[in-house]
């Protein structure tokens, strides 16, 4: 009997992956966004290892070298900075810090925020009263303001920046998770599990979290973009990551004095920020549709039409 029935995973998984890919293909913007994000991720992981030496090597002959001058080699295609360092290489290397801060802050705020949200939404005790107030307290001040104040008084190190940004973003996950849990908790399949005698842990991790997860992922994608912009703003204002470390925001800031005669110093790193956040926004939009069973048909229809 056990052998006569085919195992579920064997044929289910490849089709699932293919279904996701075909839904992605149905939204061409999202496809491009995913490819671009993969490139950025590659730069963030391997960039410093490959190009660190080139990116920090000063070259006075290449000071403020204009872009699209193809005689200097591909590293200078986007021009050179005020110390003659190739901008392209610097952007690739800076991807790491930029991504690391954003990823760290998003991961930390998502884990802490959704854990608190789960507790606040699921428990009927005092925690469900107090935890949302915590979110209110944090939310009553705009995140950039809070970050500015804290970083003014603390050392603007990578850890502190991640910490500050994470704290300011916790309420987003906390509120969403709580609201969703409050709703999912009352759904009939959760009641059905309780009738069977399922423990709270099982109900939370097997029945509630899988339903809430898509929403959280969508928000996290969007929030990644938000945190990146916040980090860039902090760096730009000079209270974020400090030289000689680099991030894209810091590069824009460093190029600002030269904006009248060498616009490319600020333009390219800024464009990198725009394209990355744009890709994240596109991906998040796609996720919102793809993960919503009532909206998914839009993508599935598209996939059918295209092939």
């Amino acid at each position, binding site marked *: 009997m056990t052998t006569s029935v085919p195992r579920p995973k064997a044929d289910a998984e490849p089709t699932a992956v293919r279904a996701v890919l075909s839904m992605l293909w149905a939204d061409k913007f999202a496809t491009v966004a995913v490819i671009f994000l993969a490139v950025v991720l590659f730069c963030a992981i391997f960039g410093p290892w490959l190009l660190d030496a080139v990116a920090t090597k000063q070259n006075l002959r290449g000071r403020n070298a204009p872009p699209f001058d193809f005689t200097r080699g591909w590293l200078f295609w986007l021009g050179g900075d005020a110390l003659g360092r190739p901008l392209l290489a610097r952007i690739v290397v800076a991807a790491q810090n930029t991504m690391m801060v954003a990823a760290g802050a998003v991961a930390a705020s998502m884990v802490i925020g959704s854990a608190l949200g789960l507790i606040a939404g699921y428990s009927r005790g005092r925690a469900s009263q107090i935890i949302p107030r915590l979110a*209110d307290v944090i939310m009553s001040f*705009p995140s950039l303001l809070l970050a*500015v104040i804290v970083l003014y*008084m603390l050392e603007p190190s990578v850890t502190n920046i991640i910490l500050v940004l994470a704290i300011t973003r916790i309420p987003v996950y906390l509120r969403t998770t709580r609201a969703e849990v409050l709703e999912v908790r009352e759904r009939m399949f959760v009641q059905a599990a309780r009738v069977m005698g399922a423990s709270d842990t099982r109900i939370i991790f097997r029945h509630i979290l899988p339903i809430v997860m898509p929403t959280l992922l969508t928000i996290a994608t969007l929030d990644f973009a938000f945190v990146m912009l916040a980090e*860039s703003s902090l760096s730009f204002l000079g209270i974020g990551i400090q030289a000689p470390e680099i991030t894209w925001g810091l590069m824009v800031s460093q190029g600002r004095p030269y*904006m*009248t005669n060498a*616009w490319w110093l600020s333009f390219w790193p800024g464009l990198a920020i725009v394209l990355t956040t744009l890709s994240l926004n596109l991906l998040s*939009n796609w996720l919102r549709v793809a993960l919503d069973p009532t909206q998914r048909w839009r993508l599935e229809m598209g996939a059918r039409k295209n092939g």
Partner: protein
Amino acid sequence: MRKFLGKRAVASAVSLLLLIVMVFFLSRLTGDPTQLYLPVDASLEAREKFRELHGLNDPLMVQFGRYVVDLAQLDFGDSIRKARPALDVVLEAFKWTLALALITMALVTVAAIVVGSLAAFRVGGLFDRVATFFSLIGASAPDFWIAIVAIVLFSVNLGWLPTSGTGTIWHWILPISVLFIRPFGLILQVVRGAMITALSSAYVKTARAKGVRPRPVIFVHALRNGMLPVITVIGDQAAGMLNGAVVVETIFGFPGVGKLMIDSILQRDFAVVLAAIMVTAIAIFLMNILIDIAYAVLDPRIRY
């Protein structure tokens, strides 16, 4: 309603208190507080004198008590740079920020609602796709970068608009335009989503069965329902601007509270920083109440 506002006030007061406590302890416990209050190059004697004058050698709790009493009397101390009460300096700057925020948010709200509603009416149509794409770009672009690009383009290359200051109406155009872009993109996205939901709802079907024309269907039947989630986002964005559009004000040399705060931080004018925090926090609190009232006005189901 009154009970709700009371609750709201208490909650905000608690947040404000927590912030006050946090600022105090962070300022006293992380290194030498005179570094916060005095210029970086102040001499040792000057520091010691300052310490003596402001009781920084007293026990921590005594200092905290004094700090709270001063704050309760809205006495933030004098601005070191301007040599006059910090609160006056902040209020003066706040006027500029308030004007900038009001004008920008009014423009953003109207534009985002009109464009978002029309985009939602024909989902997937040409107008929708163009609007969605540009709103996404708008929501993705860092304001400091747009500001720089705009200055290079319109001020440096074309010479149409001044780069900084506040003298004429022309000075307002760039800051408002740059500030406009991101909230416009974000709010438009929310309006579009909310309107898609509202337009596919059952009551819109009823309206169509009654013979209501498309325009009132969108702007009377659907919009008021669709506005509910939008209001929250408008509130968040307005809060961001009230705290001083730090980046934009800095770049365009606009004398608002954001620029004031950054300048004061960089020049160690702590009294002004403190006053600015309080003033913006109170402004944001008032605005949140306005948002709550707007909610109750729009949706009769909400009774606080």
